[in-house]
């Protein structure tokens, strides 16, 4: 059983969590081009690396951020959801997608 350490609930089996995908920032729909918008809607950073992801502890409904190496399945760090708004997630893959 894989274990994920939740910032609120501590170490829990990974089956208690839902994966919410990589954190992505939408372009401004009022000013971006059609190509930028469709790229935002569909395209993903598919290759492996350290990615910031949304995860939710289902039983407590608690959303948080995980920085995870998707090649080795290793959690590098976890953050409260506020970190996204506060701009604290600095380590990027440089993919810019």
């Amino acid at each position, binding site marked *: *059983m894989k274990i994920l350490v939740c910032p609120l609930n501590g170490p829990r089996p990974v089956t208690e969590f839902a994966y919410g995908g990589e954190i992505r920032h939408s372009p401004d729909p009022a000013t971006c081009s059609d190509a930028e918008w469709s790229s935002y809607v569909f395209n993903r950073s598919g*290759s492996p690396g350290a990615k910031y992801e949304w995860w939710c502890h289902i039983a407590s409904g608690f959303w948080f951020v995980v920085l995870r190496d998707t090649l080795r399945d290793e959690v590098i760090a976890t953050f409260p959801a506020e970190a996204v708004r506060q701009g604290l997630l600095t380590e990027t893959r440089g993919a810019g997608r």
Partner: protein
Amino acid sequence: MPHRLLRFGLSRKHPEPRMFARHDALRPAYDVVIIGAGGHGLAAAYYLARDHGIRNVAVLDKGYLGGGNTGRNTTIIRSNYLTPEGVKFYDDSVRLWQDLAADFDLNLFYSTRGHYTLAHTDAAMRTMRWRAEVNKHFGVRSEAVDAAFVKRGIPSIDMSCGGHAPILGALFHEPGAIARHDAVAWGYGRGADRRGVEIHQQTEVTGIRLRGGRVVGVDTTRGSIATSKVLCAVAGFTPRILDMVDLHTPIYVHPLQAMVSEPLKPWLDPIIVSGSLHVYVSQTARGELVMGASLDPYELHATRPTLDFVEGLAAHMLDMFPFLSEVKVNRQWAGLADMTPDFAPIMGLTPIEGFFLDAGWGTWGFKATPVCGKTMSHTVATGRNHPLIEGFAFDRFARYRLTGEKGAASVGH
């Protein structure tokens, strides 16, 4: 070992027959370079050489032949899809499968079994009727059948599925079949090799050289090659190759796991799929049950399997077949599935001239091996997308013209 046999084995006069030649070095240039020596890549090489006369072709693989998803799938072949594009495409594939063994002069253990997609709810029955009608419209033998028909076809099934998911009916697809997946890669590999194609294993592509928006060469761990055409057929490794040419796609990678039981006496003739229970199962000629389920729930680029998977799948198998409770699981493994948002592949031309893609094959690629080879070889040879793959074009996302195959492509989505 008897002495006479050993002498025979060591004799130079009787070398072990090889399926394909080993080449010491790469040539400086090829007409076409195919990345990925799986079923899809080798099939494309085979048809390029056989049907289009293009023989100066290299197939490169960073691992070994057929070591990716070609050797990791559950070998189910069917064409009971949902969209007209999908049904026509996979039906062509099923027809190609049926005389592939004669083509190769190699036994593929192609075995037509009949394929049941079980429906446990009214909503699922409605989808089965929809698929049956689309299938019949294109001449594919599929029928929505009732519970009594299912019970006659699979006498050993618990029709109540443990009491919590009673079977109401099914989509029955008569041409559903299984085959020996390694033999498919070997057959295409040998056929391509005999026609002059070079297969280079343990040759990793490290870069693709472009000039003015077109392909001019490929860098590998064994040297550089000049070429104007590259076909990328690498399943779960697609995003890493696309990064080399700076192409962006919706492809995301999750592991897909499978397992086999110990061998049993033959008792399960048809192939059984249940979307509600997240199970597909068939019994091989050896007697093993080959079982699969839905995708792992999050992105991962590693093939280490999990105990959670075995527990979950075994529980659902026991819902259908409680008498298997003493049967042991022999092996489990995982492959990397390159998923797309509409559960259809991404095939053909790309914005980079000379760079062709055969990807997005997620959990549904094995059955399409022959037709992918046919259509991709046509596309590479002529520089135009084959008519059968127009619904799978690279630019369909930018045009919001998706080919929604989710209802028929796999289980548990």
